[in-house]
């Protein structure tokens, strides 16, 4: 824990030194960018797992937990206190008594139960239902035999008890924006979808579909003195080159950067001092189907790892906007093994390993990939000539993102390139390499290693956090050795911001998602922001 703390602190340096020097100032308008597409899907965040929809939702809504970017862990947000049973199955929350919804209604235990039952309700088919799949009494609720979930219990107006059937880490699930707390009955109100009401620091003002969502300061927000800003325009700008122009033209206050822009901004004296970087919990990789030849042989998978000069690609093509991957778990995770060495770049060794595995003439492989520049065809293009040297004749099989997400869980691939979430819960992430996890869930490569399974099962039963982390670290080392993927890199998320903006957080789970209440702008901002 200490290690990740110092890392997060180091990454925060750029901002915190600047923001500590001055005290936050109230007022002003912020033009925040939602960069992942040219529209918002919905204002009913319970229905959506997409990051893009979180941009407005994060301003309007709050969840029981919130990610703490400084300590790299979920912490209580809408509750002041939690007591866990010794077996980590029952959690009792003391809820905040000073929180009110935008319509003036005070926040109570009923709202928590209402919201969670709405999300879990199978008829709704909401993505957050899986957060509650382990609750006591969920089967009866899903079958329609029980009207309520037995594991969600109101003790009094400001106390809620949540009971799980197995040991649980509720913070990682309940911190998600799509597990937000709505006022009781809101989901059934037809006006809610066009005019959402929440507990968040900002009130909804208007939505211009395809263009922007406007929110304004909520005066009765439960944190003293916050939010600082009067208004936020959350604008849609999906095209990276257009975003670049808009940012340089000072029309927007933040911009998420791709590799090429990262270099350009670092080289520009006017821009280079206002770049925020963080090691995000995404692992970019080429996953192999380990159930079929040739990737059923560990030597072949390891040879693939040895055949690519990943450092060179990261330096030249990804422009150092990534951290070299060793195994699966990323740098910011507690169970990351900092002593582990990545696979060496060794073409001769790769050739030898292929020959030893029974492929002296090399292998042919089709890599299914999308057009993404950081984890798609751009990278596949770069590894094709390198693989060719080692006798791996690779071809690119381009697909759209929605097709990738269909063929990979279905096992309809030889190899695929993707960027998958590899945190913040190490245990949940490692489950994807457990041999009993079905491919259709997240065990896409179908790794099967008895030593790993044993460690993973032990970690599941372990209640001591330090020991659990240690077990998961060993499990991660086995994943690296077994090589179900070519481990490419962990994303370094980079956001450029205008010099007048302060209070940004280095959020490792998704840098672009900010706690807006902590942001403020100083006097140097242009008139359009005042």
């Amino acid at each position, binding site marked *: 824990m200490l290690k990740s703390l110092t890392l997060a602190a180091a990454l925060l340096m750029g901002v915190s030194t600047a923001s500590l020097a001055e005290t936050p100032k109230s007022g002003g308008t912020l033009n925040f960018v939602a960069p992942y597409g040219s529209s918002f899907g919905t204002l009913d965040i319970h229905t959506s797992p997409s990051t893009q929809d979180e941009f407005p939702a994060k301003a309007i809504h709050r969840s029981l937990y919130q990610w703490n970017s400084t300590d790299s862990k979920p912490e209580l947000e809408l509750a002041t206190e939690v007591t866990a049973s010794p077996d980590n199955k029952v959690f009792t929350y003391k809820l905040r008594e000073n929180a009110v919804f935008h319509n003036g209604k005070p926040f109570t235990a009923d709202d928590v139960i209402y919201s969670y039952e709405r999300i879990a309700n199978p008829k709704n088919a909401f993505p957050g239902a899986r957060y509650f799949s382990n609750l006591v009494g969920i089967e009866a609720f899903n079958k329609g035999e029980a009207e309520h979930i037995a594991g969600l219990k109101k003790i009094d107006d400001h106390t809620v008890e949540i009971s799980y059937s197995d040991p649980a880490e509720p913070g990682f699930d309940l911190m998600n924006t799509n597990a937000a707390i709505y006022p009781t009955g809101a989901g059934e109100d037809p006006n809610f979808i066009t005019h959402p009401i929440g507990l968040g620091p900002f009130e909804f003002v208007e939505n211009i579909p395809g263009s922007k969502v406007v929110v304004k300061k909520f005066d009765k927000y439960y944190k003293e003195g916050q939010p600082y800003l009067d208004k936020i325009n959350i604008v849609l700008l999906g*095209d990276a080159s257009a975003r670049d122009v808009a940012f340089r033209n000072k029309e927007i206050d933040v911009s998420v950067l791709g590799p090429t822009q990262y270099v350009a901004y670092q080289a520009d004296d006017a821009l280079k001092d206002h770049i925020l970087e963080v090691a995000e919990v995404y692992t970019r990789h080429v996953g192999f189907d380990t159930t079929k030849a040739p990737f059923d042989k560990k030597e072949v998978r390891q040879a693939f790892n040895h055949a690519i000069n990943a450092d060179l690609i990261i330096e030249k093509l990804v422009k150092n906007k990534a951290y070299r991957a060793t195994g699966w778990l990323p740098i910011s995770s507690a169970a990351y093994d900092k002593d582990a060495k990545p696979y060496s770049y060794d073409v001769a060794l790769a050739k030898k390993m292929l020959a030893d595995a029974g492929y002296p003439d090399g292998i042919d492989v089709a890599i299914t990939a*999308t057009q993404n520049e950081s984890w798609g065809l751009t990278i596949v293009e770069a590894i094709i000539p390198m693989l060719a040297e080692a006798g791996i004749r690779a071809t690119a099989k381009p697909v759209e993102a*929605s097709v990738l997400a269909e063929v990979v869980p279905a096992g309809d691939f030889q190899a695929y390139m993707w960027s998958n979430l590899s945190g913040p819960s190490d245990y949940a992430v490692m489950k994807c390499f457990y041999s009993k996890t079905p491919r259709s869930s997240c065990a896409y490569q179908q790794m099967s290693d008895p030593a790993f399974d044993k460690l993973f099962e032990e970690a599941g039963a372990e209640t001591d956090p330090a020991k659990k982390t240690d077990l998961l670290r060993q499990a991660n080392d086995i994943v690296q050795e077994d090589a179900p993927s070519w481990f490419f890199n962990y994303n370094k998320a980079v956001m450029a911001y205008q010099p007048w903006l302060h209070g940004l957080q280095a959020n490792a789970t998704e840098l672009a998602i900010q706690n807006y209440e902590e942001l403020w702008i100083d006097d140097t901002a242009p008139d359009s922001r005042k």
Partner: protein
Amino acid sequence: MLRFTIRRLFQVIPTIIAVAMLIFIIFSVIPGSFASSLMSDGKTASDPEMIARLNEQFGLDKPVYERFGTYLVGLAKLDLGTSFRTREPVTKVINDRIWASLKLAIAAMVLAVVIGVPLGFIAALKPGSLLDSITMIGAVSGLSLPQFWLGLLLMYLFALILGWLPSFGYGGGDFKYLILPAITLGVTPLALLARTTRAGVLEIMNEDFIRTAQSKGMSNSRMIRWHLTRNVMVLVVTTIGLQFGSMMGQAVVIEKLFAWPGIGSLLVDSVSIRDIPVVQGTILVIVLWFLLINTFVDIIYAAIDPRIKQT
């Protein structure tokens, strides 16, 4: 005239039904699904239970012919279905976006007409002159530029280097946000209009009735005013109609580049996340727009030149 109008309007119906059937078939065999698109950013692990529930909720677990029946019954009641993503009626989703598209199309068309027609006219008055050659090569050049490339160049020049105009967005409807996308979209119809006008004027100048008018001693200016304008008008109106009608489709790339909240960018987004009811609805609206504009042009055409009605 009224009978002609009604007859032309009724001719639209079979085409729109055929289009509706065609796009239903196309989008029922498309790979990927809305449920899978939710997992495409790698953030959410695939969840077979949720996929099954979503498919059940959207009726995607039913056989194709049954879905097709539901779709047709809905269409007959002018119900385009419910968006998978927003869970709102498709008509509302489209209504939120279509006004921005109309605004852009009208602005681009006005630009094209105001510049293109006089340009073509001037070029035709002195065929073969340097001015004519420059105008025509310029027009062909305008037809030869990749749209997003032109848009990007304009964006860099006018927004970044000169700082005159905002580079993107809708800005709540401010006029200055409209200028760059409208210019980018207007270049193609502008070039076509200049060419059509020039060709029309040249063609008519050669025709017999003008020579007759000249031999009868009608004054040169009156002749140009009357015969030319009326006949060129038919040609120009046709081009305007065709261009205006297809503009919604042409704007797709430009709307995406400039983050313009029209139905073109809605369509591209909806295709990529497989929000099929919105895709079908948007294409139907674009097609209906094209057909109605063309019908309208035919009616104007008939009003200008009554001989058309007979054919």
